[in-house]
């Protein structure tokens, strides 16, 4: 008996020990850096405690403007992405058009190319096009619009995939039943298809909203260095202004916003489950 108990105990210990690398990784690459950021945000460049940075950052109007612009760009990108991704995902989920899922691969394919290279190529292409058609460069004249175009292009696959997955799971019988019972296509869409895809829409929205909030390369490249969103502001505080303390505060702000958006997502998905909108 004792033998068995000991063996069980030792096996338990062995299993637990498997999580040690993960635990160490989390401590060194997540927890410690996070504490460093908090520490830097509360000190000045000499390492003395200094709380004025917080006051300075939030009394300067330009910081609020930057945070506001980041929100605007992120929300606009999310909405446009979903509006484009929804019909695409719908077509892709239809087996008639998308045999063997080849078309899905086409939409994922651009993600195999390096992100920066892809964005630069898009910038040159868009500018060339606008130069020929309207005689100005989009990213120079309307850098914010350029940034949104770049973000939509780069994050579209993140919106398509969750929607596509959700639509594959849709119960086709319900759609047919609704049509058989006399609902016109509009009613079928709004009363049957749309409710069934809500979880997909929510996860597509978070998948695009979060990376656009923290994005930096796209705004830098597609905004010609003239667009200030939280990501680029942190970059200029680190590389141009050399104030890692202010950069830390902004990082915490960004973290906070992303945390909030996660909570919001949880809230929505919970509600859906409670109301049992889903059909599985």
């Amino acid at each position, binding site marked *: 008996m004792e033998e068995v108990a000991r063996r069980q105990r030792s096996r338990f210990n062995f299993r637990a020990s498997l999580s040690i690398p993960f635990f160490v990784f989390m401590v060194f690459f997540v927890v410690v850096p996070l504490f460093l950021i908090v520490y830097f945000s509360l000190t000045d460049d000499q390492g003395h405690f200094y709380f004025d940075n917080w006051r300075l950052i939030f009394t300067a109007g330009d910081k609020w403007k930057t945070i506001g612009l980041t929100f605007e760009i992120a929300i606009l990108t999310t909405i446009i992405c979903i509006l484009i991704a929804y019909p695409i995902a719908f077509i892709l989920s239809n087996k008639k058009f998308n045999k063997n899922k080849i078309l899905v691969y086409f939409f994922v394919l651009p993600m195999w190319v390096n992100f920066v290279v892809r964005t630069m190529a898009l910038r040159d292409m868009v500018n060339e096009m606008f130069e020929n058609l309207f005689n100005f460069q989009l990213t*120079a004249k309307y850098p914010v619009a350029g940034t949104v175009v770049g973000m939509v292009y780069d994050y579209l696959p993140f919106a398509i995939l969750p929607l596509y997955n959700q639509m594959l799971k849709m119960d086709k019988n319900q759609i047919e039943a609704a049509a058989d019972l006399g609902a016109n296509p509009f009613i079928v869409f709004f009363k049957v298809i749309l409710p069934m895809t809500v979880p997909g829409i929510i996860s597509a929205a978070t998948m695009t909203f979060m990376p656009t909030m923290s994005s930096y390369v796209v705004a830098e490249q597609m905004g010609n260095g003239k667009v200030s969103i939280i990501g680029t502001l942190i970059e200029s505080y680190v590389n141009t*202004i*050399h104030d890692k303390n202010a950069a830390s505060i902004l990082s915490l702000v960004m973290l906070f916003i992303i945390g909030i958006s996660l909570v919001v997502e949880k809230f929505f998905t919970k509600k859906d489950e409670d109301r049992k909108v889903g059909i599985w």
Partner: protein
Amino acid sequence: MKTKRLLMFAIPAMAMGSLVGCAPKYDVKLIIYNWADYIFEGDDENPKTIKAFEQYYKEKTGLVLKVDYRTFATNEIMYTQIKEGSIKPDLICPSDYMIQKMANEGMLQKFSYNEADGKYGESLKNFEDYGSQFIKEKFTSVKLNDNNSLLTYAVPYFWGTMGFTYNPEYFTAEEVGTWECLWNKESKFSNQFSLKDSMRDTYVTGIFHIYKDEIAALDENDPEYNAKLTAIFNRCDSETIKKVGDALIEAKKSTVNKFEVDAGKEDIVKGVYSANLAWSGDAIFAMDSAEELKKPARLNYALPKEGSNVWFDGWSIPKNGNKELAEEFVNFVCDPENAALIMDSVGYTSPIVGDAMWELVNDWYAAEEDEEDTYEVDLSFYFGEVEGGATISIPTSERGRQFDAQYPTEEVLKKCCMMNDFGSQQKEVGEMWARVKSA
């Protein structure tokens, strides 16, 4: 079985051991921390500067020297690394304002330089003999907190100016020959310029705009002209910072196409915009590559008439660096033969003069004997006494091009000022820069 496993470990271990054993032994080591692409890398005829120096050192002292050569991307990154002790070089090559900052913070050692008679010791004989008098005067004019001049802490390595690389088919030399072009409201100027995404450099353009009347009122024949201009150039009181910020926001909304630090020299060749705020070495690079690609075939370089910045990169020895060895290396690269090789591959302007240098410059730029349409440039202020006199004739078609970018005349240089560190105003300028970027 056991022996086999032992062998599996033993063989690689032995191999590694022998590798370590084979590594070249050395008696002394010199760590150099320099800008990227800032030294001669060797060609068919000549070994790279680093190898040549190791050879030279062995012949001179009989000791085996190992040079550990590393490169950095910006002054500020280098400064942070040295301050935090993550790299401990014996020799570094920062820009003027950074040398000033580091010296004032006590991070640098003095060179063998006598402040009283302005002479370098025997260990830096080459710079004493071949360093351009003009450059030495520029450096002695900058006084540090301990009342020593910049020459005490730095030996100049390369220098240049800041102006516009532009497409002469789009802009005339007059149009970009003034900083006011950045505030020109005509539609021709709209979104045609790039500025530096570096606040120290772009700040300067704002200064020349907001104080244009004061600068225009200065008397150019006043012997104190440059000193007075430099005082305006380096102003950074709160009111100035605010005004510069407003001016930059205004420019950003009309003429500025892009803020960049390294994409500009390629963008201007591609024709993304028509004028690029550039350092002279980058301008020469862009002009050369435009010629090669024939797209747009010709680019020119213009220094605005109000004045501009003249910058220097100099060798400095951090505290705890091996001073004797570092001076030996600096003296070696100040030898005109070596300096000519380096300048040939780097493209910036070397402060070293002498016959070898003069020959190189003539070789590059002087007009052919039968060329009729030429203009004469007197560089005696810079080269001093050289064989056949320091006057060079340049084909007129080359006006405003590589030669003018590399060797500005005395007239032009009189209007070029050296940058100071922002000092305690750094944070305020940083906030201004964040405001400009978010406007």
